[in-house]
């Protein structure tokens, strides 16, 4: 299963580099803390107002952190001049996409856990009771964000004005994921049963499938020179 080995080694490499360089994770963690303060200041001291805004703020936080974290997906390749090396490797290039996607999902999950904990502590929101259904919504939303984010990150890594282009390309495409996840999160936090938001979850699952498939199919065209 060379394909799986290749996807795995990409993940292994990225985790190893991140563990040593510690560039992305630390800054993102701190960024989450900053967001917490930002949201509070922007919405004012009214507890009620903040409580109703929590689902939206949670996802806003994920997306903002995602823009920063995902945009850096291929930084190591660019800085170390390894694009060509990857292009010269034989076999299905989509294995690289899969490995990077896995890495990004891990990163985004870590960010989400931090944000959820911070929200729970600072905004005094009960996020523990609905933890199980919330996790499902988060997982589906994360894949949707990371699938397109990884693909576009590979593209913008090789283009001018990448810091601007990445969010401009990614955000409009993320609209349905955002709508779905916020609506579903809202319902879940209000204690509604998952069955009520089944349509949203199905939409998310379907979208995730579509995005990952497109990523797998088109990655070689983004990598190829």
């Amino acid at each position, binding site marked *: 299963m060379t394909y799986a*080995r290749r996807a795995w080694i990409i993940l292994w490499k990225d985790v*190893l580099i991140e563990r*040593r360089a510690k560039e992305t994770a630390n800054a993102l963690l701190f960024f989450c803390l900053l967001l917490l303060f930002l949201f509070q200041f922007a919405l004012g001291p009214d507890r009620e107002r903040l409580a109703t805004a929590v689902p939206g703020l949670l996802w806003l936080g994920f997306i903002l952190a995602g823009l920063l974290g995902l945009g850096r997906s291929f930084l190591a390749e660019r800085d170390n001049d390894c694009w060509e090396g990857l292009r010269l*490797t*034989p076999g299905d290039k989509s294995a690289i996409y899969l490995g990077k996607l896995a890495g990004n999902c891990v990163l985004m999950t870590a960010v989400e856990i931090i944000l959820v904990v911070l929200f729970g502590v600072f905004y005094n929101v009960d996020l523990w009771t609905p933890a199980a259904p919330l996790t499902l919504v988060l997982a589906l939303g994360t894949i949707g964000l990371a699938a397109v984010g990884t693909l576009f990150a590979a593209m913008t890594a090789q283009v001018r004005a990448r810091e601007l282009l990445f969010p401009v390309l990614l955000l409009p495409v993320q609209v349905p994921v955002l709508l779905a996840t916020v609506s579903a999160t809202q319902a879940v936090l209000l204690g509604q049963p998952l069955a009520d938001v089944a349509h949203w979850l199905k939409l998310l699952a379907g979208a995730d499938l579509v995005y990952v498939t497109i990523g797998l199919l088109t990655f070689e065209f983004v990598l190829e020179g």
Partner: protein
Amino acid sequence: MILARELRKTYGSNSVIDGVSFELGAGQCLALLGPNGAGKTTLLRILATLLRPTAGSLSIGGADALREPERARALIGMVAHGSYVYEDLTARENLRFWETMRGGDTGAGRLTAALAQVELDAVADERVRTFSAGMKRRLGLARVVLGQARLLLLDEPFTGLDRRGQKWVNEFLLGFKAAGGAAVVATHSFGSGLGVADRVAILGSGRLLLDRPAADLSPEALHRLYESLTDGAEAGR
């Protein structure tokens, strides 16, 4: 090993490579000379299947490199300016990564042997960030050796190396040739590398202005030819 016919690469109205043809057999080394900007790197990248030529045909190890680049890539090892190393990984980890990507066997023994061949086994577990340019170059060579390349494409392998380093690369190439591999070495410096070349070619204005067995030319004769040809080529630009 290589069969290139009428390779052309144009960007807009600019012909960087303008009809290059040559052949290279196994166990042979071609030194590709030319001033900066002559198109050596472009030609090398076309040979490496990193760049598609605008016209012409290319066969590597019997495979049509343009229609089946994957088959050609399995035989090629390229060490260029960006020597494809991740600075935050150790030498051993870099090898493990690239060899896995190639789909090869990454047993500890194989990795150590490759590192030993390029005399990097002592620093195998040091991060590449601490390596000198020469050491990074050697790591690149270890990578292609591990990948069992049959054709080496080296872009300016002697730049930034001291005499010892250059001598080392020369000896490495000799050993590689003796084992049946072929190599194309692009360089703009004269002293190094010519000792190991079987053929010498000069690239100017996108064309091969010279392609002769190295034995035919003394170093001084070559130097004179180089000056006159490239001066003419530059005047013609």
